[in-house]
């Protein structure tokens, strides 16, 4: 089968395409009661009409056995190519869901919704393909017969004697947006059959013939009509409810189904589903199984798991309860959940057993009180569930051998004791044997214990009861001894084995509980989705003893693996597409399920309250373990813990982001108000001065001169402010990454002094830099800006004739640069705040205002160089700005000579 494995890239592409599709497509079902009523014909006829109305109609798949009339209808419609799959030497034609997703028509026709796909297709069932199509936003028309509806399956099996294996879950049928009933009378259908207009598959000819009997057809027709009527009722109901949402709800009623390993259970489940669905609104229902500690064997568990899956498919909530008594446990639970009706299958047990031991049904009826109990009789043997080869716990031959050996040893010891006259009484010998049986039961289980009891009786008879050395017995009283000994041995064995199993199961549960607790504790203390995922991944892997991979959605929505990147799951080509599918549909898939079963692992969705966060993949060596309800529940518990933790983490991040957003917003608004004020002030001055100049001709020269100076000064101020704002925003946006080169500090200071020579004309500036200062690895322009800002401030805030001193010294691995003045200093307490944006300490010497940005810019620049900048008032008066910049060990040295 070269084509069996789906191409992962293709799958991925389609999954992504499906993601892109926004609106879910609508589903229309052409519904009939038997083959031959003309569903396909009706569908094609409608399709042709839709096409003439201008819709983009494509035939995805129509059964190849179409009659000539049907063929004629197909003519002129676009038909998708089918996929050919080789399966055991036969070439099967299958609907190509991938091609359909690629083509993306407005309307796609897919015949036979209940069809089971050949192995190697994307899904096991065609209805799953259709789900994908709908999810991708493609409208689908399909056909379905009434007997393929899951919950009606067994009723119809009873009516017709033919059990159909290809079923469609009720929720799929119920979710159809539109139902078109295709109906002809049974007489007409039989007429068609006789004329040979109805296709019948060859191999099941006889069964089909018995199926097409008038009585059967009438019953089926009635069922289909009832389904359609129910459907109409639902539509009316939902429309009415949409109109009058305030209508009171019926009191919630709950149904409960007792689930056991017996094949009857499937019938019970279906009956309950029908009862639940018949009510308006549909009642919730529970499927419950009681796990008698240590009692259920592996095949039984398997059956229970199968039943649970059926119940889940039909929409039940499934629960496994631990307990000692089925009746008590179920009734307690039923009362706690307000269950009003209880369903249980009739057990087939021998009369004597029923009389002596009683049955669960009897007990339930006795103790149920006000809960109605429905007892459903079972079919002889449902053919639907062929019991899977169970995983019986292997009891090795070694155990049986050891039990015999232990009895032999006990015999030897008893013989020795008797020989030494230490334990002459036969009662002692019997006790010794019973002790050994008990030990065997504890150590090896029930079977070896039974063997040991029998062997003990034989050995006792042979060696310890006269005549010795034969199985013959002199005294008939010993017969009673043997019987009691055997009985006690068996009872001890059974009890001990059960005790052991109970201990084992308690221990296991305890282990799981503590593992879950630990997981919860660990997740509670961690932050960050990848940490959470890897912690949970480790824990789950340790718990189940397998491999775990975790896929998480990124912010952008792309799915990426965050745990188990090197594991075998990550290496499997189908893993990522499977994870995508799981996240997309929020459903379980992969090994042990019906969807993408050829994946390497079981994939569980990380379902959060708002979205699916990702998927957890679990692979164990023995894949059949993945269907065990116990393990599944444990895994689901772990996964939902992780989902919760991820959600909590996301919420924390969101909250932090919101806070930052709010802060940024606040800064922005204060900046805006400040900037608009600062921009408007010089503009107002310029506008005022220039308009005076224009309009008043009677100005004297001096006034004109003053006005012109105002214009020039204010324009210069405006320019400076704009430059500062631009630079600040560049620095804040990180756009001005320092262009660092090796610089001579003296040159930078000199350049800054040159630029501020006019402002500082009245000040006395001294530069005292050591000549052996190493080169600094800085952005010359930016650092020059720092000095320009500081020098401008000095000019602005200190009176004329003030002294300004620039010093520098190497201080360990830093260079310390100080710029001090003997002016008034900075106001006490505002040493930090003067570095804030738009903070202005005091009016400048000339009464004007600075931009309030200079120091903020300077500090940002120094910070970008890995340095610090502070200010302090000197003891002798005046401010001192201190810059500390890191020195590099590998500063180059240049020889002048």
């Amino acid at each position, binding site marked *: 089968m070269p084509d069996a494995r789906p191409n992962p890239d293709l799958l991925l592409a389609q999954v992504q395409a499906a993601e892109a599709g926004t609106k879910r497509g609508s589903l229309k079902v052409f519904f009939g009661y038997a083959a031959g009523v003309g569903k396909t014909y009706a569908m094609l006829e409608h399709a042709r009409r839709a096409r003439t109305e201008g819709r983009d109609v494509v035939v995805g798949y129509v059964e190849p056995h179409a009659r000539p009339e049907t063929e004629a209808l197909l003519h002129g419609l676009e038909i998708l190519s089918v996929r050919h799959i080789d399966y055991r030497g036969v070439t099967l034609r299958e609907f190509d869901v991938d091609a359909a997703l690629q083509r993306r028509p407005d309307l796609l026709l897919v015949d036979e919704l209940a069809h089971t796909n050949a192995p190697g297709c994307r899904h096991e069932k065609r209805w799953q393909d259709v789900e994908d199509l709908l999810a991708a936003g493609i409208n689908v028309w399909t056909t379905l017969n009434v007997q393929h509806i899951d919950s009606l399956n067994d009723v119809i099996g009873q009516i017709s004697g033919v059990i159909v294996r290809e079923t469609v879950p009720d929720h799929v049928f119920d979710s159809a947006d539109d139902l078109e009933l295709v109906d002809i009378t049974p007489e007409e259908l039989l007429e068609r059959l006789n004329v040979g207009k109805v296709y019948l598959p060859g191999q099941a000819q006889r069964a089909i013939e018995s199926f097409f009997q008038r009585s059967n057809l009438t019953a089926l027709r009635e069922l289909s009509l009832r389904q359609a009527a129910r459907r109409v009722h639902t539509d009316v109901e939902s429309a009415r409810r949409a109109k009058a949402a305030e209508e009171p709800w019926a009191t919630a009623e709950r149904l409960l189904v007792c689930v056991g390993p017996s094949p009857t259970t499937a019938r019970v489940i279906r009956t309950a589903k029908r009862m639940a669905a018949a009510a308006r609104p549909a009642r919730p229902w529970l499927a419950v199984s009681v796990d008698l500690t240590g009692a259920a064997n592996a095949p039984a568990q398997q059956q229970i798991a199968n039943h649970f899956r059926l119940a889940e498919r039909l929409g039940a909530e499934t629960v496994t309860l631990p307990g000692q008594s089925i009746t008590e446990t179920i009734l307690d639970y039923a009362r706690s959940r307000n269950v009003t009706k209880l369903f249980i299958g009739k057990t087939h047990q021998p009369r004597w057993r029923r009389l002596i031991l009683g049955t669960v049904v009897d007990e339930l009826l006795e103790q149920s009180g006000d809960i109605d109990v429905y007892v459903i009789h079972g079919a002889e043997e449902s053919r639907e569930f062929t019991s899977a080869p169970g995983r019986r716990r292997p009891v090795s031959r070694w155990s049986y051998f050891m039990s015999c050996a232990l009895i032999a040893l006990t015999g030897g010891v008893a013989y020795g004791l008797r020989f030494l006259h230490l334990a002459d009484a036969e009662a002692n010998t019997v006790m010794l044997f019973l002790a050994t049986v008990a030990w065997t039961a504890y150590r090896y289980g029930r079977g070896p214990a039974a063997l040991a009891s029998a062997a003990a009786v034989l050995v006792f008879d042979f060696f310890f009861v006269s005549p010795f050395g034969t199985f013959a017995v002199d005294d008939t009283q010993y017969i009673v001894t043997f019987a009691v000994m055997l009985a006690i041995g068996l009872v001890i064995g059974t009890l001990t084995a059960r005790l052991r199993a109970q201990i084992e199961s308690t221990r296991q549960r305890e282990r799981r509980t503590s593992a879950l607790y630990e997981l919860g504790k660990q997740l509670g203390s961690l932050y960050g989705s990848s940490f959470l995922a890897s912690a949970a991944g480790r824990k789950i892997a340790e718990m189940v003893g397998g491999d775990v991979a975790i896929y998480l959605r990124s912010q952008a929505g792309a799915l990426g693996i965050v745990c188990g990147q090197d594991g075998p799951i990550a290496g499997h080509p189908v893993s990522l597409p499977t994870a995508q599918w799981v996240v997309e549909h929020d459903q379980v898939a992969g090994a042990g399920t019906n969807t993408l079963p050829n994946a390497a692992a079981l994939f569980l969705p990380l379902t959060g309250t708002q979205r699916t966060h990702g998927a957890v993949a679990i692979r164990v060596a023995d894949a059949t373990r993945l269907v065990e309800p116990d393990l599944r529940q444990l895994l689901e518990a772990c996964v939902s813990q992780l989902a919760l933790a991820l959600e909590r983490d996301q919420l924390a991040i969101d909250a932090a982001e919101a806070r930052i957003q709010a802060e940024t917003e606040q800064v922005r608004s204060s900046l805006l108000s400040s900037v608009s004020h600062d921009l408007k002030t010089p503009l107002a001055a310029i506008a005022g001065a220039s308009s005076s100049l224009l309009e008043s001709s009677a100005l004297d020269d001096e006034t004109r001169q003053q006005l012109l100076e105002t214009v*020039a000064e204010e*324009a210069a101020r405006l*320019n400076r402010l704009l430059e500062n704002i631009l630079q600040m925003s560049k620095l804040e946006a990180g756009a001005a990454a320092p*262009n660092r*080169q*090796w*610089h*001579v500090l*003296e*040159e*930078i*200071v*000199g*350049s800054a*002094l*040159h630029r501020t020579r006019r402002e500082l004309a009245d000040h006395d500036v001294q*530069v005292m*830099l050591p*000549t052996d200062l190493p*080169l600094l690895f800085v952005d*010359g*322009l930016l650092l*020059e800006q720092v000095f320009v800002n500081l020098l401008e401030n000095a000019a602005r805030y200190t009176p004329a004739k003030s002294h300004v001193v*620039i010093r520098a010294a190497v201080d360990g691995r830093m260079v310390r640069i100080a710029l001090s003045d003997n002016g008034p200093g900075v106001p006490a307490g505002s040493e930090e705040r003067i570095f804030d944006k738009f903070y202005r300490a005091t009016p400048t010497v000339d009464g004007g205002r600075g931009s309030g940005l200079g120091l903020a810019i300077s500090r940002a620049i120094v910070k970008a160089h890995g340095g610090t900048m502070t200010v302090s008032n000197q003891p002798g008066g005046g401010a001192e700005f201190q810059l500390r910049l890191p020195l590099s060990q590998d500063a*180059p040295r*240049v020889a*002048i*000579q």
Partner: protein
Amino acid sequence: MGLLDLDGQEVLRRLREWYTGKPILVLSARDQETEKVQALDHGADDYVTKPFGVSELLARMRTALRHAHRIGADATTITIGDLVVDLASRVVTLAGREVHLTPLEYKLLATLLKHAGKVLTHRFLLREVWGPQDSQENHYLRVFVASLRRKLEADPARPRYILTEQGVGYRFAVD
């Protein structure tokens, strides 16, 4: 520089192919240092960023014209303030006292003097002084300029002769 149909740098490059011997001043709102360096490398004599005062522009134009004029003159001795450089005998005197320069220092000074008044980019100076094949880094230039200043300037932190054009290069002041 930001023209509608052609980049200003390209205009400058094409202009310099035939328009020689006369100075070109660039007036632009683009104040990025790389832009300035590029324009100067493409043959501009000076680069003035908007907004600018008219007096400043006039001063720059005067400098450029004087400089263009000087290149025409075939002087062997250059005198700027206290500084006298005899190009023929390679002797530098400051206020009458001879200043001892290393060969590279002298070459650097001579290059700056030859284009006095004009902004010389780092790349240009490195190529002129150290040669085209020797690709030294900018900090060589900075260290040599610092050393030259210490020998020529009264206060090296407030140079009178060799001015820094931060991020672009150096200019020898003529007035």
